[in-house]
């Protein structure tokens, strides 16, 4: 059984160089994907809005590397990375964002709603908090059917102030469901700094209200994310209940399309750019003996793959007009 990034999902032993390169590669694909989306948006080819996650890639890649087939994932409008980390095809993801017939959701979802049930990506949700109870349901079903599956939900720190967060974690806690709640604490909810909306020092400590462990980790260290996620996933799978992970990270771009992110204190972005998860990991790998050429060629091939995927998506037609009347009901 392979994990979502093609590497073994177990916690045991050292990661092989191939595994490590697979993690890097997946982060790079997501980065290039999002850079493209940003360009497409600027060119007016993406409708509405788009929420990018450059700088946060280590969280979904690290966590999804701890999952296996049958596990499920839900995420937010800022979920391109998570959906791709589960293995959704790049071209269909582009297609959805461009509103094309080849899109993951046939053009009905859009940038905020990438969904690919084939790989366990149960949806990207645009109403803050809405997906946390849905992950609880997926975890409940796993227990009910004894499938051994685990449900993961990604969400921002700002989302922990909404009612659905509370209800979902409480229910998962009291039922000891196989779920892992991953808070991507990127320090801002829209334009509001964390401390202005949340009267606790860490999100992790909120776990105590729900009878589950809470762990804060470096969300820009993909291996630490993966290792912690493996523990939480194992805990869930073995029936010991849910975990709340708080991965500290940073979105290097604005909240959405139109946000110049002027609310950041001076120097903050620069500091975090130095801790860019991809830069950091490339350094780690280079220190571990991967030569610069190998790194460069992975970069190049990821970039090419993304470009080719975009080309395929761009070549896909618009959805047929009549399709808008389909999919409301199954019967």
């Amino acid at each position, binding site marked *: 059984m392979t994990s979502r990034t093609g590497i073994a999902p177990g916690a045991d032993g050292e990661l092989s160089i191939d595994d490590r390169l697979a993690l890097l590669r997946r982060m790079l694909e997501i980065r290039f994907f999002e850079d493209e989306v940003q360009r497409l948006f600027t060119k007016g080819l993406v409708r509405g809005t788009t929420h990018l996650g450059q700088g946060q890639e280590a969280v979904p890649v690290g966590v999804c590397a701890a999952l296996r087939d049958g596990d499920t994932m839900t995420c937010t409008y800022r979920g391109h990375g998570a959906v791709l980390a589960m293995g959704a095809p790049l071209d269909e993801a582009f297609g959805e964002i461009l509103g094309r017939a080849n899109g993951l959701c046939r053009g009905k979802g859009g940038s905020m709603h990438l969904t690919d*049930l084939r790989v366990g990506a149960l949806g990207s949700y645009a*109403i803050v908090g809405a997906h946390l109870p849905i992950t609880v349901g*997926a975890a409940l079903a796993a227990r*009910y059917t004894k499938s051994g599956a685990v449900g993961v939900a990604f969400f921002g720190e700002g989302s922990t102030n909404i009612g659905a967060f509370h209800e979902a974690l409480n229910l998962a806690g009291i039922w000891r469901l196989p779920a892992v709640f991953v808070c991507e604490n990127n320090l801002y909810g829209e334009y509001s700094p964390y401390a202005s909306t949340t009267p606790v020092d860490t999100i992790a400590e909120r776990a105590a209200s729900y009878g589950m462990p809470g762990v804060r980790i470096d969300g820009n260290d993909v291996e630490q994310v993966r290792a912690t996620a493996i523990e939480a996933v194992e805990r869930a799978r073995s029936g010991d209940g849910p975990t709340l992970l708080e991965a500290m990270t940073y979105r290097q771009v604005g909240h959405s399309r139109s946000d110049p992110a002027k609310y950041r204190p001076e120097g903050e972005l620069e500091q975090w750019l130095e801790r860019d998860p991809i830069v950091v990991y490339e350094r780690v790998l280079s220190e571990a003996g991967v030569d610069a050429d190998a790194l460069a060629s992975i970069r190049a091939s990821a970039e090419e793959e993304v470009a080719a995927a975009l080309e395929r998506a761009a070549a896909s037609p618009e959805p047929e007009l009549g399709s808008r009347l389909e999919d409301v009901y199954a019967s």
Partner: protein
Amino acid sequence: MIATTYKQAITQGLADALAEDDSVFLFGEDVAAAGGVFKATEGLRERFGDTRVLDTPISEQAIVGAAIGAALMGLRPIAEIMFADFAGVCFDGLANQLAKYRYMTGGQASLPVTVRMANGSPGGFGAQHSQSGENWFLNIPGLKIVVPGTPADAYDLIRAAIRDPDPVLYYEHKGLYNIKGPLRAAADARAEIGCAELVRQGGHVTVVATQLMRHRAVEATQVLAGEGIEVELIDLRTLVPLDLDAVLASIERTNHLVVVQESSFGGSWGATLVAAVLEQAFEILDAPPLVVRGDETPIAYAANLESAWLPDSQRIAEAIRRTVAY
């Protein structure tokens, strides 16, 4: 068939569905150990065990979300939200998530979720426990809405709702829990989602009603029959999808329409029905279509105020007389 109560019919329907299909399970606040606040789930936990029948914390958002997630994984959850009025605390889950999931994902999944809610007046429960909640969801494509008014329909429609591949809001009327009636025999045609019932034939006027209002309309028809007014009574049973054909076919014969509903007018199914009829068959009516309804107010507690709000057989009869005499 022996007569059962409306409530027993629901319990029976739930039990039969649980027995028939392992992927069906039932959960909500106090539905398991206590058998539900209206006792409509009594005995199910004992019979099916506590993995199939579960009590939850007071967390309606979590309940609805959990139903969605479980349905995505192939189960057929039955979620209870207790009073229909409580749909307000999980409205996003119902209106934005459950209703739209299939559409927004381009049809990647069906969501065979049944949401049970207790509807209606006049129990003296006050403004927040007496509403008919179905009108809140009429403008939200993606949900099916059923409103059974008899034990037979309560049974057939809970079975149909659970079997249906789409989300169904199943409204149980609190005022009908104890009415009695026969279930349908195996050989009979069952009530299906989307099919109205022709309760009574009559040539002078088509009356459309559901749930408690159906029964009050029946009373009215009896009085009117004595006056020589023959009412054709239709119980819609399902509000979405609407069986407009059945209504139009009847009006074709009667050329008069009276709708009776247990709610105010704005945004109601009665107003929607009238507009739909007029759009489809403008010249079919010989008199103004009337909607007998609750006042444009919340529902008061005091007995006399609540009774005055709710249409009774006299008000219904009066409206029918006016329509026929037009």
